[in-house]
């Protein structure tokens, strides 16, 4: 047990990680936010979506450290007397669900397509890459907005699919580029030479050596998916109104901001930013770690 820990302490990746205080901070922040989202029903002082528990008497209370603030409403309340802190915990659940689902589905689907396109080449490769170029030249926000706006039916699953439909492309492109260089390596040629099947060569030799850049893409993409879901929900074409979401909280708080009730927007906004910023910091660190030569984008 202890030797394992010491081994980890000695490892390069650990040392590099600890030498990057920003990356460590980001990992701590994202872990805390994730735990908060998972444990929302346990730690939230109030179930903000149980209407009978809300009291209009608590409407639009400021955060607790300001005059007029009241326990247990740490970050204040909205117009219906909902505890902002609780709505944020519940809202960030949606962010994490969407982020994790989008990254997983796009990663597997796009990754597989890029892997096969790069390995086999030919017509399939051309078609995949041309359609990838096409999808990339249009805005993800626009595509998702059109899909959700046209069908007028909203659910968290539809939001995920509307994002995935244009999101898989970058995974496909990334892994394809990697595969193109890996497949010329001697160990891949050797695997083919000793009679290894294509499937064996792909999964045993090509994939393990081509997959690491996907981690970087995944971390950035996680943030983008979270931001996109918030944007769609803000515009009213995202998750249904009954589903708490950071974007929707900001949209609802917008009218009160003009009346000086800044806490309705600032706290959900900060949470959203903290999620995306931490993920970007982590991906930045991963990028340096995996391939220091790749330019920082």
């Amino acid at each position: 047990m202890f030797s394992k820990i010491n081994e980890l302490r000695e490892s390069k990746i650990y040392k590099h990680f600890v030498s990057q205080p920003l990356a460590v901070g980001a990992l701590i922040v994202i872990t805390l936010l994730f735990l908060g989202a998972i444990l929302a029903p346990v730690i939230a002082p109030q179930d903000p979506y149980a209407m009978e528990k809300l009291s209009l008497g608590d409407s639009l209370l400021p955060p607790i450290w300001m005059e007029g603030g009241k326990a247990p409403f740490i970050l204040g309340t909205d117009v219906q007397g909902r505890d902002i802190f609780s709505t944020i915990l519940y809202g960030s659940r949606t962010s994490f669900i969407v982020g994790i689902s989008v990254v997983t589905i796009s990663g597997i689907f796009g990754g597989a397509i890029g892997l096969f396109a790069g390995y086999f080449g030919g017509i399939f490769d051309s078609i995949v890459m041309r359609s990838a170029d096409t999808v990339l030249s249009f805005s993800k926000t626009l595509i998702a907005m059109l899909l959700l706006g046209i069908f007028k039916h909203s659910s968290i699953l539809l939001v995920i699919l509307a994002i995935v439909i244009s999101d898989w492309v970058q995974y496909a492109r990334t892994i394809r580029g990697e595969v193109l260089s890996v497949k010329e390596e001697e160990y891949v040629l050797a695997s083919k030479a000793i009679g290894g099947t294509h499937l064996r060569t792909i999964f045993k030799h090509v994939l393990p050596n081509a997959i690491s850049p996907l981690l970087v893409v995944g971390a950035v993409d996680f943030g983008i998916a979270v931001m996109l879901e918030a944007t769609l929900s803000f515009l009213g074409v995202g998750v249904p109104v009954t589903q708490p979401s950071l974007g929707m909280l900001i949209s609802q708080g917008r009218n009160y901001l003009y009346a000086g009730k800044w806490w309705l927007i600032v706290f959900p906004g900060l949470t959203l930013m903290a999620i995306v910023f931490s993920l970007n910091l982590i991906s930045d660190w991963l990028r340096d770690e995996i391939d220091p030569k790749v330019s920082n984008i």
Partner: protein
Amino acid sequence: MSSYIGRRILQGIVVLFLVSFIAFIIFQYLGDPVMTLAGRYATQAQREEVRQSLGLDKPFYVQYFNFLKNALQGNFGMSYVTRVPVLDLIAERLPASIELAFVAESFAVIVGVSLGVFVSANPKSIMSKFMMTGSLFGVSLPTFLVGILLIYIFSIKLGIMPSSGRGETITILNFWRSGLLTLDGWRHIILPAFTLGMFQMALLFRITRGAMLEVLSAEYIRTAWAKGLRGKMVLFKHALRNALIPVVTMIGLQFGQLIGFAIVTESIFQWPGAGNLLLNSLYESDFPVVATYVIIVALIVVLLNVIVDISYAFLNPKIRYK
């Protein structure tokens, strides 16, 4: 080079065909043109008449062909809501959107590229490290949040910037209502343009920096330093010119994204542009407007990509002489 550009143009045409097909589906099958034209209480016979006049009884490919023919003549039908030809509706809104995108993109390119060059020239300074983290923060801010906070600070708290609309406009050439010719118009465009351009700025900054660092480590740059050229000369004439290739590509690629963010920005600042129109048409299920908007956006994106590909060929001799 001509075969390279020819291939790109061909590819663009294929994309336009695909998009027009999607637009056709939205137009013909998602909306209910018969109901809208004949009215809710029309008899079966009246409906049939409208169906025939719209060509809805014809086979699928004939309908698609007619749709294309009409589209090429600039006839995209009427808006369900305002009963105005869709193309007029969008054409009226387009100048506002183009001006906003232009100001935002210019801001992003000028500031982003200059900062990128600065940081690559002084990679070790504290300012550079600060700007690198700052730019990461910049790409982490959702457009809508930036817009709202800017309105809160500059329009509500400080009261020095207008929060919505385009301000005073002047019509030039009989069709282009421009806000860039009046002081009031510029006052109105600053906040939305900053909101829209910030993400791009941060991105271009990071890309320029990355590309510059890569170029600066090349042999010919060392040669340039070694023969004693001035710093500015090396940086701008030798390095930046080569570093610009990925930057130009990214500007072209990102323009499509800009259109998406523009919809959000226009909605927040009540900017009377095409993006705002699209959003309202989506809310009201005004499908002819949505379909036409999709086609126009595709046209702009494809055209821009071809332009980027051509300028890419000019910047990069490897492609030019292939």
